């Protein structure tokens, strides 16, 4: 299946939108066991500040 998350660059080759690409990655990686109140996998920005 061909992804719909790319557009053609100036060189004629497709380039891919990071957010859509990694939303798909996160979706495929979402653990079967729930993690409780965590971030939504489709909104995968991690704004947590390391401590």
């Amino acid at each position, binding site marked *: *299946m061909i992804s719909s998350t790319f557009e053609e660059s100036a060189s004629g080759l497709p380039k891919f*939108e*990071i957010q859509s690409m990694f939303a798909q*990655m*996160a979706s495929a990686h979402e*653990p079967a066991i729930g993690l*409780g109140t*965590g971030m939504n996998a489709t909104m995968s*920005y*991690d704004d947590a500040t390391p401590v």
Partner: protein
Amino acid sequence: MGINFNEKSKDNPKISGLEKSKTGEDALEKAKRTGERTRFVHKPNPLIERDYQIFEYIIEKGDYEHVGDYVLLNKDEPREITDKKVMNIMTLINGKDDLIDLSNLTTTRLLYTIVPEAQAGDQTKIILKDYDGSGVSKDNAIFTIRKGVLYDKFNV
């Protein structure tokens, strides 16, 4: 410009005879041997355990060129998960979305951050993170690829 990267080379029919005799080769070796024109392929970094190099087929050169890396930071991650994550990235940047489902293999959620362009140089750099449901996420891997393959819809 219409290019079928998956079309087998018609100008090198001799190499097809080797297909059944070789096993255990990486994606780059296979692509070169079979003449398949998959745009992006990957292979384990020969110098760094559990790191991967990403190559892109450059039409003008007629050969693959190193354009990115996947550097695993969490060396405790099971090899199977790492391998499948890299394969999923390769699937996506090759324009497909038939990803491998990792939901039964992992207990962490995948998050990511995009390293600002000013810090990433001439590459797009993304840090993958693991989030186990508590506290803060932990760095898992760094994925870099030449600028122009990916774009950030919030930073165009």
